[in-house]
């Protein structure tokens, strides 16, 4: 028997045990999300993927699909809620999209475009967060951190390392590194770790090979995030490959530059 639920009026097939998010993503449907990544355990903290089922709210990344569910996702009400959540994330941290190296490759930024967020709406908190430049390959730009824990889970579940954790409570909550000094350079983190690639914002900045693809030609500059449902979250390797290719190209360009 085929199982399916209804997402914004469309039948979405699923296999028992799949979450609404998994099934929707497999079917190429876009449910906005930041803390979800296929292949990592679900977290349900960003609340971007909250949908409405029978007048109640559920995070689609943690809710199991069930036969006959009527799921409301891209409605005016849901979009408005997501816009508010995005605005909260923007004012909580320090996000400088125009000058950020990740501009165009940033899921937070792309989701904000998708949800029609035009202003931060709330007063900025302007938190005082340090930048960790202790590692030879990666700079941790903690001003961008949205506490989605993707790096925490990637390090634990894929890299087998436990390099990251969240510490503190409420507004004092922050990303920490598993080393006595608290610095990335003193941990066993490596630039080749999966944790370095899953960040949906711009916390993990590479020291070299940046701007291989100029802003304007990047992942979400070309097509909106909703049209990349499969690549943005599902087959993340596709975007990783694209990014690696770009980096390689950037390195080639740098070498050519040096040769001249």
């Amino acid at each position, binding site marked *: 028997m085929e199982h399916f639920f209804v997402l914004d009026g469309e039948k979405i097939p699923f296999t028992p045990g799949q979450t609404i998010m998994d099934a929707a993503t497999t079917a190429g449907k876009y449910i906005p999300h930041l803390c979800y990544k296929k292949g990592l355990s679900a977290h349900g903290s960003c609340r971007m993927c909250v949908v409405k089922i029978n007048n109640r709210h559920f995070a689609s990344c943690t809710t199991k699909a069930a036969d006959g569910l009527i799921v409301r996702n891209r409605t005016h009400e849901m979009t408005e809620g997501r816009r508010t*959540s995005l605005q909260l994330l923007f004012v909580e941290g320090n996000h400088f999209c125009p000058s950020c190296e990740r501009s165009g490759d940033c899921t937070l930024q792309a989701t904000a475009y998708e949800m029609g967020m035009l202003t931060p709406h709330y007063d900025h908190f302007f938190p005082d967060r340090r930048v960790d430049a202790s590692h030879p390959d990666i700079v941790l730009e903690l001003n961008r951190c949205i*506490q989605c824990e993707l790096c925490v889970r990637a390090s634990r579940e894929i890299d087998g390392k436990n390099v990251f*954790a969240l510490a503190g*409570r*409420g507004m004092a909550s922050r990303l920490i590194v598993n080393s006595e000094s608290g610095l990335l350079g003193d941990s066993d983190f490596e630039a080749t770790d999966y944790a370095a690639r899953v960040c949906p914002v711009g916390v993990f900045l590479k020291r070299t090979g940046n701007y291989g693809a100029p802003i304007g030609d990047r992942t979400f500059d070309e097509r909106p995030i909703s049209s990349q449902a499969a690549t943005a979250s599902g087959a993340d390797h596709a975007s990783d490959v694209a990014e690696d290719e770009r980096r390689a190209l950037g390195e080639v360009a740098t070498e050519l530059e040096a040769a001249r």
Partner: protein
Amino acid sequence: MYPVVEDILTRNGHDPTRLMMILREVQAVFGWVSPDTITQIAAAVNRPRAAVQSTVEFYTFFNAEPVGHYRVLFSDNITDRMLGSLALRDRLCAAFAVRPGEVSADGLVSVDRTSCTGLCDQGPAALVNTRAMPNLSPERIDAMAALIRDRRPVAEWPADWFDVHENIRRRDKLLGHGLTPGAPIKAALDRGPEGVLAELSRAALRGRGGAGFGTETKWRICRDAPGYAHYVVANADEGEPGTFKDRVLLASCPDLVFDGLVIAGLVTGARKGMVYLRGEYAFLYPRLTELLAQRRRAGLLGNNIMGVGFTFDIEVHLGAGAYICGEESALIESLEGKPGKPRIRPPYPVTQGFLGQPTAVNNVETLALAALITTHGGDWLKDRGTPTSVGTTMLSVSGDVERPGIYEYPYGVRIHEVLDAAGATDTQAVQIAVGAGKCLVDTEFERRIAMEDASTTGSFMVFDRTRDLFEVAANFVEFFAHESCGFCTACRVGTTVNKRLMDKIAAGQGSPQDIEEMQRMHRHMQGASHCGLGSTATMALRDILNKFRPAFERRLLSTDFEPAFDLDAELSEARDLTGRDDALAHLAPAHARR
């Protein structure tokens, strides 16, 4: 390596699930949990260092930074504030020329606030190096300052300063139970697990923690859930501002609670029970553990209880200052030594709880009632209460009343009956729940305390007509911003946005838009939060806002939109350049030559 830390770790069996207790002991020795002790502990309990640091930084009573040798935390509940707690705090700060939240230059003292300490009936209260101290006064603050200056250990301070009273004002069937320790266990053994469940079902006992889930159903699901071990937990983490019934129950009838826990173990097949005691109630810890030892000697705990081959034991775990740990899955995370963040549900703790095993978490009052029902049968409570809320309930009454304390009433009691009994006069409002938000005004004092009318988890804070309900709302907003665990976006940031809006209004900079923003945030957090804390964090604010809007409006800078800059003043340069200053050179006649 600190040998003293090694001792603590050894005594706790290097057990990561005892991390909270380990950290508590380490802090008692050093005053804080330093980076090198975190490294040592992490290695010993075989957890990543960052995981231990996460736990340290999550809880209010653990310090990842050095604090004063004497750390005084003033209870910041609204009832403590009404009794002058902030002035007392400032008095102590002045005595040491230290600012709130900072450590004095000589490292001697630090003074700060903490969330409600559960001593609202005998405030203003404070915790001094985690010891609860009620009934503070300016004289006592001065005497305390002198003792601190003399560096006298807190253990040598006058013992009566630490006396916590029970203040039981009205007893009904629960508080007047008169059972001997172990009698309920005997009854349970006679009835057998199915017999106990049948009586709980007949009594229609619902959990007294707030959710009102059927106790019989919970125990049955737990018992039937597969697992290599089952656990039962007494949730004594009442952090709801204005409640202190668990404190009084554990002080006045701890045996009844322990009996209830043993019965829960018998019914669910658990061999281990845990009492999760909030850190604010650490003063009850020695007595409770001593009582457990006595019960082991008396054959009421341990191997072969009452000679029938039933094995069950109880441990008391202390929390460390986090309201969210009253949520059962957060409580279990804390029992496992982790930050208290609510888990994804399902699975529910009753099937996958402590260490992934079936775990029944029950409120302290629920366990006491279960013990009584087991003893007297399911019909015993039927002569009290309403059709849907059977039995009695314990109300923690504080605020503007002559006789604050615990009142046990049958469900269905009217608000004004409680007010009259407690000696409340000229009452403006009663807050009967902060988490669920209910603020009742005088036209509602005929309403009844019951699931089907005015439901409460026991908090009953009374405000007379001299009180400003804006201050009350501001206190609640601050509470939730402080106690949000930070896991989800909506609650972590939303509670802080609300706090900033309240601060703005309090500073006289508010406009009606700010009120509208808080209403919007209420709607947003209802749907977008991960757990009950977030979805109820704005309920009290919303309720007070709806019923006491003038208290907010009279603080607003304008009842219309107010721009941040003066439009007419912006034209002054143009006026200078043109040499004009007549009425028409101004933006509006009202602005002319102001």
